[in-house]
């Protein structure tokens, strides 16, 4: 297993701190779409309160892997996920675990901002309401909007539609909405790809703040973004059958300065992908 070798060969200080206390561990994860093997043999340890970035060329299965963690692939009838996803010691990929319980704890922010066609206030309060969170609604809305660095911009128009905000604000609203269900892991699927550079920077700053309390896994096409925000980077590539494989994982600085695998180096230096 490529990954195991790399992990084994890199017994640095970061390994000692990250591996034994992973919050999410993917073990031998394989994803099929119908008969097509989309991703194979993913083994990944996600350390708590760090940002893990998944990078790689288009179609290499980064988003597919991300969507396994909160069981979003259950919504795609043809998708079949095998292997285990250990979260707080429980295999959340097992049939016995209701995906609703998983998603309640593992929040997700999508590529395209998708606020509900409701008021800003209701966008945030809704998730708390269905999950029976007792916190005073007004306090919760303010806490989450502050947490997503959006409060000052919207505090005077909480009754207005979430869809009326700018793209960057909508994305921060979606992050605030996720905070309202008190997750401990937040998945972000290319959260800045639809945003302008200034909004992107705001989201990146926000991620650095959020990571003090939450574990973040982000899929990004933007290598500068991965280099800027993440602590750990995971590189995916395609094998000859166009199946996604995990090539290399490591501390972000090490991945960008001294990649172990030539495919990682080619991708990072722009020779490929």
């Amino acid at each position, binding site marked *: 297993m490529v990954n195991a070798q790399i992990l084994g060969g890199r017994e640095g200080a970061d390994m000692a701190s990250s591996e034994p206390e992973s919050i999410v561990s993917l073990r031998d994860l394989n994803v099929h779409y119908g008969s097509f093997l989309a991703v194979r043999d993913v083994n990944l340890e996600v350390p708590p309160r760090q940002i893990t970035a998944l990078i790689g060329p288009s179609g290499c299965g980064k988003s597919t892997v991300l969507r396994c963690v909160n069981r979003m692939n259950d919504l795609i009838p043809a998708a079949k996920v095998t292997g285990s996803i250990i979260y707080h010691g429980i295999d959340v990929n097992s049939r016995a675990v209701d995906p609703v319980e998983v998603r309640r704890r593992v929040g997700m922010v*999508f590529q395209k901002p998708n606020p509900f066609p409701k008021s800003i206030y209701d966008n945030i309060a809704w998730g708390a309401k269905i*999950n029976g969170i007792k916190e005073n609604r007004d306090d919760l809305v303010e806490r989450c909007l502050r947490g997503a660095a959006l409060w000052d911009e919207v505090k005077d128009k909480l009754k207005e539609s979430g869809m009326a905000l700018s793209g960057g604000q909508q994305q921060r609203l979606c992050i605030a909405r996720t905070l309202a269900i008190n997750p401990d892991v937040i998945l972000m699927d290319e959260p800045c790809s639809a945003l302008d550079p200034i909004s992107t920077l705001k989201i990146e700053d926000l991620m650095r703040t959020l990571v003090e309390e939450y574990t973040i896994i982000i899929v990004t096409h933007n290598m500068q973004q991965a280099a800027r925000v993440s602590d750990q980077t995971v590189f995916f590539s395609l094998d000859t059958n166009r199946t996604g494989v995990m090539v290399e994982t490591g501390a972000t600085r090490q991945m960008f300065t001294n990649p172990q695998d030539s495919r990682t180096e080619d991708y990072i230096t722009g020779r490929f992908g």
Partner: protein
Amino acid sequence: MAIESGPFRDSSVDGFGAASGTLAGEGETRRLNARKRWGKAFEALSIVLIAIALGTLVVLFFDVLRRGLPWLDWQFLTSFDSRFAERAGIKAAIYGTVWMMIFTIIFSFPLGVATGIWLEEYAADNRLTRFIQINISNLAGVPSIIYGLLGLQIFVRFMELGRSVIAGSLTMALVVAPIIVIATQESIRAVPSGLREGSYALGATKWETVKHHVLPTAFPGILTGNILAASRAIGETAPLIMIGALTFVPFTPENLLDRFTVLPILIFNWTSKAQSDFHDLAAAGIVVLLAILLSLNAIAVLLRQHFRRKLRF
């Protein structure tokens, strides 16, 4: 433009028309004009076809108004049918239409909407579902007289409901149910997938997602489909003639098992009479039917706008 060479230079043309203020040379301009002519030709054709369609409609409409309006008075609206044109009215047909529409709506809306929701949101993608789906699509295209035959056999004879309001409503519900199912499905399919994903990602169950996000977003479309289905039911004649709704009815229905008539049947009956006065009466009836139809459509538009606004897009 003073570009003499470079990527913009087209070797097939005789130079830039600097004097005429155009980038293109003569040959290129000629070819561009030829390409534009196709666009113009298509536009002209479309306008002619629309003019024919709308022109026919306008002529028919004014003919109906011209013949019908002189007969359209309070007496016409409040009298029963009669052998004498000047005493004949549409009271029974209006009552019958209202009774039948109310019960058609009661029978068809919940059935059609629920089926649409089930097919889109709950049904697994298997052979049974696909079989049901294909059948519903085909049913929407079955001639309504076939439903009349079905209604005659099942509701009138087998269930012994007679040629009553309820038999007519049930038959008409069958006619419009597939239309409602399809309108519901299309409205639900138009709900952006990001909305569903956003809801599920917050730990919502399927029912919470459907109730709070899918249905409110699809609701204006579902409503429009339902009202259009109701408009179709109001104008349908064939299935009701088939089950034997009466043509001459000097009474209003008192309960569900009473016999009845509806506006289109009365109009049909009048047009088949020999006296020309009855033909003008039919025109007056058509004016009333059109007024009801247009009001229904107007209500559909208003309701749709109302619910769209509630949705804070």
